[in-house]
């Protein structure tokens, strides 16, 4: 591409002539997609139309490069797949997706060159075959309607960027990169790190810094305090028998979520060695939801708690601050020894991390449950300090050139740094971004960034293993990757594929490269690149860090990444926006999270507007009462309140606008007052308690042993008795007036292990992507019309100040005696020969009676033409699943298209469908393997074995619906009564 660019610059950047900066860009976009531009200012219906406009964009993706510009490079697909490829059959590409710089290995399912679904890569250590919610939604970002497709210049000008880039490289080289600052997101990529290193070699005056608003740098700084060097910390929760999380959320979203979730649940499957989880936190998290003992504490108490734990274990001398640890904690840690683990989160200051590292070392946990390796992310300065230094340099006039790559500091930097204004003051600024985001709007030049699914590259997993990035489709002309831009600035014209390949050519032994490269492309991971564990000991000058002073009086504020849009980078993704946040169940919005008691004291209710004043800055936002939140502090979820972006703009409030660089995570001295406004917040679950009903069952660990002794049947009863006051007769024992079905082949069924569910939402969005489920927008969700076929019910139990938190994935139960079937007047929902309750869309006339008679309320109705209006660009649709028209009912099908696929394969090979051959989308995405699916007529199948467990129960089975989806009761380890007192 680049050579050709040289030859015909006007061909490559021809659109630039029409572009004179922001206004010009908008005009260009208006000209090409007038509806799209008009739509941006208005509400939901328009939003949906807008999403529909992506179809137009996507449709042109294939013919993006005109013949004259066509690259010489073929897109290399998974080795071996293409020769036997049958048109119509999907291809799978192994690649990696970045989050906080770390790689998450995925397989991209691609139909005729269109990626339609993302699955985990079983060979990748951060995936193990599963994915998180962000990865599932990556496909929609690919078709974001406001993606940049050409270079932009702020305020006009007629220069060709192509010339500018070449010029730039020369200019930079001429004065050694004086005044050049390179600001990137967190970087783990070996090739990019090498590329930047060689750029910096060429330009000795230039400096590189990394910025992430939600980086985990404190953990590494803590290691520097404790061990004398910055080290990566990785947890192995599978081997832990006692886990103490101090304001940490290892099960929550983040680059480690999948591996941590899998490990944690692995340590809780066997009642004989069942880990115990202690959690101290202010804002309920996914980890807190699974805690056996959870303590809502203010973040100000965190340093003292860490210190008290350390002191109790003899790591530091006891402090005289009156902190009392809950009984049993220290004994647990001592008893577990090397099988214990203490962890602190990104909000905790380095001093707390240092204490935690020292505690783990003292426990002997390092090497078993805690692993230290060299840092995965590049060593360039990072964090708030680096950014503050940059701001100071800009003020001093020391920065004459700024290159921002895949970071958005103008939006997400602490408010006092005011980078939006400062970036504008830099004489030359260049930004590589996927959208015209807040930073791009301030930079002189903006270049379009290729989507990860269009990019060549490599990323390291948290354990160091390199995962390769390879494109699943050709990037639109003009886009480039970070690696390419860095190379261009260094004067190289090589395309990204050559750069990546070139880097790894050196890394492999000569002669073996071709075979190794092909295998790497196939597997998606580079073998043997995991980091060695580094033995640690306390640094010689180790001193007990001074306790961190609490800042200010008044309300404490803590900042948190949002579970759906993270730091804001996913805010333009409608699927993630509509993904109910695990605990609040809010969609399309963030809110000030506050304890019910504190809200009552301030006279605030859900959706009430409040003004938050924090050290001279203020914001107005709705509050949301979150049971289990620590009193007298509030949580501000980051990632909303964008000022740019067609989807993201105007949603929620911008918590960055009150974040200070001196207290980026926990701040004191806030004042919260009702503003008198009311906000519309859309939630998918209005009612949070089980009102005493027997819906989510759990069994205390202590009782489980007794149950096992009683044996299967009796055990089942015990499980029921434990949970609900009155367990009625199980379905099988009740008579029915309808005849029994006779199954000659398989009869499908599912077991959902509530003990394994961490509430991470991966299944919800996996189901949405697989089954072409549309996003409907905030107003429709507020009306109660969300379309998710699979939802996760969250229930609070007990005291709102400190409740137990339950998750229950609810999908169609495929009842054997389905109440929906008998009320449909036109036979549109019927039982099939394999026990599925199937929905015949084109027979449905839309009486909605079936939904009325469904006690699980899992049916969804197309109130409008959601499929056609957008919600999802048609090009991303799974071609194996029908798009539903307006006025018909739909619901979970047990991924019937996957069953069909397996059946066809089995028939071709003249054999029955094997157990485990059919994997539903939810099952495949689940990091903790909570779903088991298969043939329930085969007693040897995994699902039959699961259903034989004494923990198995059917939801509302007393209604005699005989659900085929059953649940395995959650196992809990609550404090014994004497312990609690």
């Amino acid at each position, binding site marked *: 591409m680049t050579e050709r660019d040289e030859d015909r610059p006007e061909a490559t950047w021809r659109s630039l002539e029409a572009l004179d900066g922001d206004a010009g860009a908008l005009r260009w976009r208006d000209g090409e997609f007038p509806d799209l531009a008009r739509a941006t200012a208005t509400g939901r219906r328009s939003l949906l139309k807008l999403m529909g406009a992506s179809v137009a964009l996507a449709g042109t993706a294939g013919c993006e490069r005109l013949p004259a510009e066509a690259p010489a490079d073929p897109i290399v697909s998974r080795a071996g797949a293409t020769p036997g490829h049958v048109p119509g059959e999907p291809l799978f590409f192994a690649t990696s997706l970045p989050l906080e710089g770390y790689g998450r290995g995925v397989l991209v399912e691609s139909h005729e060159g269109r990626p339609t679904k993302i699955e985990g890569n079983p060979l990748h250590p951060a995936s193990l075959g599963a994915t998180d919610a962000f990865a599932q939604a990556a496909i929609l970002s690919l078709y974001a309607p406001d993606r940049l497709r050409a270079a932009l210049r702020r305020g006009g000008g007629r220069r060709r960027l192509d010339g500018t880039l070449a010029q730039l490289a020369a200019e930079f080289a001429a004065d050694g990169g004086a005044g050049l600052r390179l600001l990137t997101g967190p970087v783990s990529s070996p090739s990019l790190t090498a590329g930047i290193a060689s750029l910096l070699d060429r330009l000795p005056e230039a400096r590189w810094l990394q910025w992430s608003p939600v980086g985990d740098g404190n953990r590494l700084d803590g290691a520097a305090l404790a061990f004398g060097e910055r080290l990566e910390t990785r947890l192995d929760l599978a081997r832990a028998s006692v886990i103490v999380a101090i304001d940490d959320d290892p099960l929550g979203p983040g680059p480690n979520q999948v591996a941590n979730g899998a490990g944690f649940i692995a340590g809780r499957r066997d009642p004989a060695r069942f880990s115990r989880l202690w959690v101290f936190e202010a804002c309920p998290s996914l980890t807190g939801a699974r805690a056996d003992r959870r303590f809502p504490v203010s973040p100000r108490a965190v340093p003292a708690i860490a210190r008290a734990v350390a002191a109790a274990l003899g790591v530091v001398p006891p402090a005289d601050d009156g902190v009392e640890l809950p009984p049993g904690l220290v004994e647990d840690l001592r008893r577990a020894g090397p099988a214990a683990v203490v962890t602190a989160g990104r909000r905790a200051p380095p001093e707390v991390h240092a204490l935690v590292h020292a505690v783990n070392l003292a426990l002997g946990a390092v090497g078993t449950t805690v692993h230290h390796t060299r840092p995965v992310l590049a060593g360039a300065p990072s964090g708030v300090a680096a950014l503050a230094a940059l701001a100071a340099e800009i003020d001093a006039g020391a920065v004459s050139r700024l290159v921002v790559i895949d970071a958005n500091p103008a939006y997400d930097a602490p408010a006092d740094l005011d980078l939006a204004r400062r970036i504008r003051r830099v004489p030359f600024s260049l930004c590589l971004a996927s959208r015209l985001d807040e930073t791009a709007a301030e930079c002189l030049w903006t270049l379009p960034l290729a989507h990860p699914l269009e990019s060549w590259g490599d990323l390291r997993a948290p354990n160091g293993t390199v995962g390769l990035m390879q494109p699943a489709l050709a990037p639109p002309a003009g886009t480039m990757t970070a690696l390419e831009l860095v190379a261009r600035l260094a004067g190289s014209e090589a395309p990204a594929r050559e750069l990546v390949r070139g880097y790894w050519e050196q890394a492999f032994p000569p002669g073996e490269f071709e075979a190794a490269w092909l295998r790497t492309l196939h597997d998606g991971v580079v073998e043997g690149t995991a980091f060695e564990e580094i033995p640690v000991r306390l640094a010689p000058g180790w001193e007990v860090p001074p306790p961190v002073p609490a800042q200010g009086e008044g309300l404490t504020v803590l900042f948190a990444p949002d579970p759906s849009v993270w730091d804001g980078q996913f805010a333009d993704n409608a699927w993630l926006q509509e993904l109910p946040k695990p605990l609040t169940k809010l969609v399309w919005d963030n809110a000030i999270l506050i304890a019910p008691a504190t809200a009552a004291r301030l006279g605030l209710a859900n959706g009430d507007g409040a003004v938050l004043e924090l050290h001279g800055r203020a914001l107005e936002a709705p509050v949301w009462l979150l049971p289990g939140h620590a009193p007298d502090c509030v949580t501000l979820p980051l990632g909303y309140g964008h000022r740019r972006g067609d989807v993201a703009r105007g949603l929620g409030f911008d918590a960055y606008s009150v974040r200070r660089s001196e207290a980026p995570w926990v701040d004191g001295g806030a004042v919260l007052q009702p503003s008198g406004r009311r906000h519309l917040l859309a939630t998918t679950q209005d009612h949070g*308690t089980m009102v005493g009903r027997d819906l989510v069952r759990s069994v205390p660990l202590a009782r489980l042993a007794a149950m096992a002794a009683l044996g299967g049947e009796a055990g089942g009863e015990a499980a029921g008795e434990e949970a609900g006051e009155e367990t009625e007769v199980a379905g099988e024992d009740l008579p029915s007036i309808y005849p029994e079905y006779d199954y000659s082949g398989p009869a499908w069924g599912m077991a959902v292990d509530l003990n394994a569910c961490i509430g991470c939402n991966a299944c919800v969005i996996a189901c949405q992507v697989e089954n072409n489920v549309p996003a409907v927008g905030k107003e429709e969700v507020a009306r*109660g019309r969300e379309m998710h076929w699979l939802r996760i019910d969250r229930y609070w139990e007990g005291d709102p100040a400190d409740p137990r938190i339950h998750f229950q994935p609810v999908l169609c139960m495929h009842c054997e005696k389905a109440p929906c079937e008998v009320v449909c007047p036109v*036979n549109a929902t019927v039982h099939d020969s394999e026990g599925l309750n199937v929905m015949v869309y084109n027979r449905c006339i839309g009486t909605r009676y079936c939904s009325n008679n469904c*006690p699980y309320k899992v049916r969804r109705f197309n109130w409008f033409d959601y499929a056609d209006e957008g919600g999802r660009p048609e090009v991303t649709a799974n071609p194996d699943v029908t798009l539903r028209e307006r006025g018909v009912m739909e619901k979970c099908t047990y991924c019937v298209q996957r069953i069909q696929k397996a059946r066809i394969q089995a028939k071709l090979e003249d054999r029955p469908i094997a157990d485990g051959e059919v994997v539903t989308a939810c099952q495949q995405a689940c990091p903790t393997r909570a779903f088991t699916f298969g043939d329930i007529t085969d007693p040897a199948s995994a699902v039959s074995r699961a259903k034989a467990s004494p923990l198995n129960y059917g939801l509302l089975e007393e209604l005699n619906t005989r659900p085929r989806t059953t649940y395995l009761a959650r196992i809990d380890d609550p404090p014994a009564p004497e312990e609690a007192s």
Partner: protein
Amino acid sequence: MADAGAEAPHPPHGAIGGVVLRQRFGWRWLAAFAAAVAGSLLFVYATVVLVVRGVGVWGTNIPHVWGFDIINYAWWIGIANAASLMAAAFTVRRAPWRSALNRFAESVALFSVICAGLFPILHLGRPWLFHWVFPYPATFGVWPQFRSPLVWDFFTILTHLVVTASFWYVGLIPDLAHLRDRARGALARKVFGVLALGWRGSARHWRNHQRAYHTLAGLLVAMAVFMQSTVSTEFAVTLVPEWHQPRYPLYFVVSGLISGIGMVLVVALLARHFFELHGFITQRHLDVVSSLLIANAIVIAWSYAFEAFSSWYASKVELQSWLLRATGEFAWLYWGAVACAVLAPQVLWWRRMRRNVAALILVGLLVAVGIWLDRFMIVVGGLLGDYLPSAWEGYSPSVWEWPLLVGSIAVYGTLILLFLRFVPVIPVFEVHAGRRDEDGDEARDEDGDRSGEDDR
């Protein structure tokens, strides 16, 4: 209108037939008709919006998949069934005083069932496919699912329409002949002549007519009860805790009945006022209707009480569900229904109230409103306490649901106004015959208030 009675004080033929035959539309009628037609156009507009944009224009959601569509349907069908039942029962019992009320009841029934029948079609996600509920030999093999109460309902509405229309029309034949004979214009003579089916009033005609009329009435008594019960199965056969109750069929019959009686009373009193029919609709009729209202209200009170008891008795889920209905977000509906349908008719214990036309009309309307609230409470309130609390959700009607309610009332009003103008509102032949019969009964009529008639 006043002149209708004034010109021909005796015999009644002149008074009733005259309304129809002398097309002197008073301004009040015209104004009412214009308002009704405007309301009907609103209904048409709301329907067009509904069909073009989809049922999403309503405030319905999951779990409240039904809103005003089914509320209105259940309300209208209740009125229809009750009015039919009332007319048919009077006929079967050969109640001597029935004739003045019968045709009002029949007409209210017919027009209500027309209004009711619109909603099950409009409420569909794809209304243009409503005929799939009908068993016909479609080439693509679609066939109704006969276990579904919606299929039963479909046949119920169809049957109701056919039988009620037949009953109404058969009862009308002698009067149409009467109009034919008295009509002055050639066109009117022709139209009434065709509609009268060659009625000459021979003894054989009378015998056949009475047989047919009474047979239909007998059928209608049984069917009104049966049909109203069928509507209730739409709720009673489901799993929804507040719907799955054995009291429903009886409850629907009784609550429908009271709304139908209320509606007949209102229409009859308005007609009496504007057409000076005091000679035909007497205090005796009003007393009978008042007694029926009171009796029904008592049965409804019992039904509410039984519901509370059975919810408490049945299970915790049903009790919670009932409590949510009676004390939750929609409690005003529950208590509104109690106030309007149970308490309001109790004022009719007082004779003064029974003689006060305004009070009677108010009670009649309140009862109709009360039963509408009751239907709202059933359709929406029933789902408030469903099995999974996670699915609990609110419902509020959108701006496109109100026009359907108002518009359907307007359609009904249009039909009633046309009826008042073009059809003898009281069976001429029966009044004639009844007058002969009642002359002998006069002594037994304790509260006989014939003054209105005698004055003339």
